[in-house]
C-alpha cells in the first residue's frame, strides 16, 4: 500500500468521501437557512426543529411502511411543518427588525423542542433505516459506506433540482428577484406570501433530506437533535455569506472538509477537541473575509 506522509492511500480516499458526505449534509442544512434568509431576512433558528420533526416522523414510520413511502411521508410532514411555522409564527412578525425575527425563531425552536419532550419523552429513540444504508462496498481496496455515497448523490440531485427551479421556472425567477430586492419585486406583482411560503417549503424539503441522512448516520432521534445540526448549518451559512445560496453550499462543503481533515490529522489525544479546531478555522476565515466566501450583492429587506 503506498503511503503518503503518515496516512495511507486508502485512508485518503475514504476521508475524501467522508468529507464530501459531511459537507453535503452541512450544505443541505445551510441552504435551508440561506433560502429563508434571502427572501425574508429571517435567521430561522427553528430550522433545526424541522430536522427533529423529520427524525421523529422517521422513528414513528420506519418499519410500519416500506422505506420509499416513509421518505415521501417524511418529506410531506416536514414541508407542512415548515409552512405552518411560517404561517403561524413568522408571518405576523414579517417586516419587523432582525432581532425580533431572531427571537421569534428562538421561541419557536424551544417550543417545538419542549413539545417533542412532552409527546415523545427525552430518552433517545434508536432506529435503523435498513441494512443497505448501513452497508459498504469495496473498490480498489477502499471501503466505501453506502450511506456516504447516497448522501453525496442525493445532495447533488437536490442541488441540481434547486438550480433548475431557480434558474428555469417563473416562480424561481420571482424568488431570485425577491431575494435581491423584495419591495421592488412586490411592486412588479410578485406575491410576498407566495414567495416566502415557497422558500419555507423548499427549506422544509431540504431539512427532511437532512434528517434522513442524519438519522441514518447516528441511528438515534432526540428532541434536541436539531441543535447541533443547526449550529453547523449557521456556521456554514455565515461562512458562505448569509443569504447567498452558492455561499451556503460552499460553506457547507468547506466545513465538512475541514472537520474531516482535523479528524484525520489531529493527534489522537486532541481528536475530542476536533470541533474547537474547526470553529477556530471558521473564526479565522471570518476575520479575513467578514462578508463570507460568496456574499450577496442585493439589499435584503422586507
Amino acid at each position, binding site marked *: 500500500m503506498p503511503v503518503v506522509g503518515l496516512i495511507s492511500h486508502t485512508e485518503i480516499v475514504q476521508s475524501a468521501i467522508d468529507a464530501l458526505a459531511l459537507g453535503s449534509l452541512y450544505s443541505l442544512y445551510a441552504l435551508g437557512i440561506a433560502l429563508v434568509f434571502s427572501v425574508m431576512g429571517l435567521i430561522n433558528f427553528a430550522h433545526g426543529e424541522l430536522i427533529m420533526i423529520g427524525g421523529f416522523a422517521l422513528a414513528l414510520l420506519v418499519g410500519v411502511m416500506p422505506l420509499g413511502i416513509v421518505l415521501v411521508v417524511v418529506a410531506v410532514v416536514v414541508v407542512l411543518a415548515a409552512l405552518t411555522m411560517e404561517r403561524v409564527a413568522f408571518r405576523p412578525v414579517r417586516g419587523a427588525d432582525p432581532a425580533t425575527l431572531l427571537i421569534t425563531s428562538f421561541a419557536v425552536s424551544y417550543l417545538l423542542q419542549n413539545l417533542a419532550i412532552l409527546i415523545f419523552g427525552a430518552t433517545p429513540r434508536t432506529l435503523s433505516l435498513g441494512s443497505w444504508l448501513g452497508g459498504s462496498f469495496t473498490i480498489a481496496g477502499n471501503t466505501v459506506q453506502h450511506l456516504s455515497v447516497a448522501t453525496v448523490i442525493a445532495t447533488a440531485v437536490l442541488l441540481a433540482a434547486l438550480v433548475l427551479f431557480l434558474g428555469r421556472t417563473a416562480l424561481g*425567477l*420571482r424568488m431570485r*428577484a425577491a431575494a*435581491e430586492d423584495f419591495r421592488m419585486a412586490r*411592486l*412588479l*406583482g410578485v406575491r410576498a406570501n407566495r414567495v416566502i411560503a415557497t422558500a419555507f417549503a423548499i427549506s422544509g424539503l431540504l431539512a427532511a433530506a437532512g434528517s434522513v441522512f442524519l438519522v441514518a448516520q447516528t441511528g438515534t432521534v432526540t428532541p434536541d437533535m436539531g441543535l447541533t445540526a443547526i449550529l453547523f448549518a449557521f456556521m456554514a451559512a455565515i461562512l458562505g455569506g448569509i443569504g447567498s445560496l452558492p455561499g451556503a453550499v460552499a460553506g457547507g462543503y468547506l466545513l465538512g472538509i475541514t472537520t474531516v481533515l482535523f479528524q484525520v490529522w489531529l493527534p489522537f489525544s486532541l481528536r475530542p477537541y476536533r470541533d474547537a479546531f474547526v470553529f477556530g478555522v471558521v473564526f479565522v476565515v471570518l476575520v479575513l473575509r467578514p462578508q463570507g466566501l460568496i456574499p450577496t450583492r442585493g439589499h435584503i429587506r422586507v
Partner: protein
Amino acid sequence: MLKVRDLTVRFGPILALDKISFDVEEGEFVSLVGLNGAGKSTALAAITGLVRPVSGSVTFDGQSLAGRSPEDIVRMGVALVPEGRHIFRSLTVEENLHVALTSRADKQRAKDDVQQVRARFPALEHLWETPAGRLSGGEQQQLAIGRALVCRPRILLLDEPSLGLAPKIVDVVFALLKELHEEGVAVLLVEQNAVRAVQVADRGHVLRRGRIVVSATGKDLSERHDLAELYLGL
C-alpha cells in the same frame, strides 16, 4: 381616475404628508415638484401600498386602494418606477422584464408587450442577456421604465427618473415620458428638476413640507418666474 383625498402620512413624530389632495385623470400628465423631503416620494409610496397613511383616501377608478398590497395595486394598473431605479442587478435585462410578467393575467399578450419594450428601447437590445448591474445609469433607467411598462399600467408613477443621469439621457427620459403620454398612459411624475417636470405636464402641484402649496396647469407653472421661490418657501 386616480383620486387622492386628504392623504396624511406620519413617520413617528414626523408629519410627512399633511392632507394632500389631487387627481390624475385618464391619460393626464401630472407632476409633483418640490424639494427633497417635501413628501413627494411618500405620496407615491402611499398610493402604491408601500406605506400606510394614517388618514385620507386613495381611489383608483372608484376603488379604494387602502389596505391593498403593492402586488395587488400593480395588478389594478398602477405601476411605480421608484427612485434609484431598483433594477435587479444579478438578473439579466430579459429576466428583469420577465419578473414584471407576474403582474399580468394575460400571459400571451404580456409576452408581446415584452417584445414591444424591446423594440421601444434599442439601447437595451444588445444587452438582453447581460446582468442588469453592468448597465449604465441611463440604460438602467430605461430598463426600470420598460419593466414598469410590462405591467401595462394605466397610470405610470415615476420617482425622480432624471436623478443622476447625464443631460443627454435626461432628454431621452423626458422624450419617452412625452411619448407614453401621447399614447394615452396617465403619468404621475415626481421630480426635483421642477422646470422640466412642469413643462411636460398638463397639471402641476408644488409640495412644501408635506403640503400642496400651489396647483396650476403645467403651462402656467412653467411660465411663473417665482417657481423656485414657491417650493423653497422664500
